[in-house]
C-alpha cells in the first residue's frame, strides 16, 4: 500500500508552522521517519491517521483521498499514537474486544481468535485480565501495537513508539515491529536514529516541517563514505576553536573527553582519524545544513 503525500502544509492557530509544503511517497515495507522533536512528525502522522486536516495539500492511500474518505481509511489503518491513555479498571482483553468491534469484526469467534492471537504475539497473554491502568510503560506500548494490529490493517503508523522504553523493552518492541513489517506498510516515526537503522529499508528525515532526505539508509551512508573524520579533544577551548574551523557533524562525550566528528572531503589535518559513517552522521549533517541555510537566508 502506497501513501502519497503531496504539498502538505499545516499551521496551528498559535502560529507554529508544523508542515511546509511537504511531499513524500511511502511504499510497502517499513518506512522510517526521522526528525528531532518538533520537526512535524506527529502532525504528519496525525494527518495520515485521519485525526486532523491539513491546511493545504493532499494525502492519498493507493489513490484514495484520505481527507475526504476518513472512514474508508480507518478500516485499513492501524495507529499507535505517541501518547495515549487508557480507561481505568478495564482489562487489556476487554479493551481489545471493544476496539475490535469498532473495527467491524462482529463475529464473536473470529474476534476472540484475533484478540487472543494478538495478546500472545505481544507477550501480554499472562496479564490480559489485568487492568490497563496498572501496566508499565513497555506493556502499555505493546498493548498499543496490539490494538493497532486489530483487523489486519494494511497501513500501520507508529508514532515515537520507543521513546521512554528501557533497552530490553525497546528491543522487544522493535522485534515485534519487524515481524509485522513484511507484507504491510509500516511508518515508524522516531527521533531515535538507531530505530531506523535497525528496522527500515527506506527512510526520510524531516526538520522544521520540511523534507531533508528521502531514500535508503545505505545510499545515504554511501554518500558520506570516507568523509567523516574523528578527533578526540579534552578541553572545551579546543572544542570551540574547532567549531569555527571545521564543519562539525556531532560531538560525543567519551569518558569525559569530546569525540568530535567532522565532515570534510579530505583529511582536515593532524589528529583526525577516518571513521565509518553512520546514520547519525546523516541525520545531524542534514539538520545542520538546514539550519545553516536558514541562517544564511536570514542574513541575506
Amino acid at each position: 500500500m502506497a501513501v502519497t503525500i503531496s504539498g502538505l502544509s499545516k499551521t496551528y492557530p498559535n502560529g507554529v508552522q508544523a508542515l511546509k509544503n511537504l511531499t513524500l511517497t511511502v511504499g510497502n515495507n517499513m518506512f522510517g521517519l526521522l526528525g528531532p522533536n518538533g520537526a512535524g512528525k506527529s502532525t504528519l502522522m496525525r494527518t495520515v491517521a485521519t485525526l486532523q486536516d491539513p491546511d493545504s495539500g493532499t494525502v492519498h492511500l493507493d489513490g484514495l483521498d484520505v481527507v475526504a474518505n476518513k472512514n474508508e481509511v480507518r478500516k485499513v489503518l492501524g495507529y499507535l499514537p505517541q501518547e495515549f491513555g487508557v480507561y481505568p479498571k478495564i482489562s487489556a482483553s476487554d479493551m481489545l474486544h471493544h476496539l475490535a468491534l469498532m473495527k467491524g469484526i462482529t463475529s464473536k469467534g473470529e474476534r476472540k481468535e484475533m484478540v487472543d492471537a494478538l495478546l500472545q504475539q505481544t507477550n501480554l497473554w499472562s496479564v490480559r485480565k489485568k487492568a490497563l491502568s496498572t501496566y508499565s510503560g513497555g506493556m502499555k506500548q505493546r498493548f498499543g501495537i496490539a490494538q493497532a494490529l486489530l483487523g489486519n490493517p494494511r497501513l500501520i503508523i507508529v508514532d515515537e513508539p520507543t521513546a521512554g522504553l528501557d533497552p530490553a523493552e525497546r528491543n522487544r518492541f522493535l522485534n515485534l515491529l519487524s515481524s509485522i513489517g513484511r507484507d504491510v506498510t509500516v511508518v515508524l516515526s522516531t527521533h531515535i536514529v538507531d530505530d531506523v537503522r535497525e528496522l527500515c529499508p527506506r527512510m526520510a528525515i524531516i526538520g522544521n516541517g520540511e523534507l531533508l532526505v528521502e531514500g535508503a539508509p545505505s545510499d545515504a551512508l554511501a554518500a558520506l563514505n570516507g568523509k567523516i573524520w574523528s578527533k578526540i579533544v579534552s578541553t572545551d577551548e579546543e572544542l570551540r576553536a574547532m567549531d569555527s574551523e571545521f564543519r562539525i557533524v556531532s560531538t560525543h562525550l567519551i569518558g569525559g573527553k569530546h569525540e568530535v566528528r567532522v565532515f570534510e572531503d579530505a583529511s582536515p589535518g593532524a589528529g583526525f582519524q577516518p571513521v565509518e559513517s553512520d546514520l547519525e552522521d546523516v541525520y545531524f549533517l542534514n539538520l545542520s545544513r538546514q539550519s545553516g541555510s536558514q541562517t544564511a537566508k536570514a542574513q541575506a
Partner: protein
Amino acid sequence: MFWEFFTFELKFRLKSISTYVYFFVWVAFNFLNVASESFGPIGNANGKILLNGPYANAVYNTGVCLFGLIIIAAIFGTSILRDFQRDTYQIIFTKPISKFAYLGGRWAGSLVTTVVVFSGSMLGEFLGTLAPWADHSRIAPNHLWWYLQPFLSITVVQIFFLGSLFFAVAALTRKIFVVYVQGATFFMVYVIGITVFSATRSLERFWSGIFDPVDFVLLDDITRYWTVVEQNTLLLSCLLTLHLASF
C-alpha cells in the same frame, strides 16, 4: 456497534465507584425523608400527610431532581468526554465508528445508569418505612405504583431532558468544566429565584408555575388546596411530565 458502545458504557459504570456512591446518596436521602421527622419537607409539615403517600412522593421526586442536577451532569457529561479526559480519543477516533453508535451508545448507557442510580431513592424510601423508630401512624402500606408513578413521570423525565442537555453541551464544548458550571449555575439560579419568589409572597401562581423548570411551584399550585385525604390518595396526572417535557 451501537449495542457495543451501550453495553460497554454500562460495564464501565458498573466498575466505577462513583456509581455506587450516587446510588447510596439517594437511598440515604429518601430513607431520611421517611424515617426522620426533622429531615424532609413532609416530615416537617402537616402531621397528617402520609410520609410515603402520593403527595409526599411527588415532592421527594421533585427534590431529587433538583439536588440531582450535579449527578446527572456528572454521569452524562463525563460519558462523552471520557475519551478526551483519558486521552484515548486518538485510538477510538482512528477506528471506523459511526457518530450514531458512538454518541447514541454513550447517551443511552448514561441514561440507563442514571435511572438505575436514581431508583435508589425508591429503595431508600421503602427502607425508611421499615425503620422501627419512624412515625408509623403516618406510613401507609407500601404501594408499588405510588413509588413508580412519580418516579417515572417526574424523575425519569427530568433525567432524560437534563441529561440530554448536559450531554449535548459536553459534546459541543468538550469541556467538563462547562458542564459542571452549567449544572451548578442552573441549581443556584433556581434556588435563588424560588427563594426570592416565595419571599415576595406573591399571589400570582400561574406564570410562575408555567416557567418553573423544576416544578416545585407548579406542584404547589396544583396541590395547594388539596385536602389531606386527597394528598394521601391522588397521584398527580401526567401534567407535570408534559410540563417538564415542554422545557
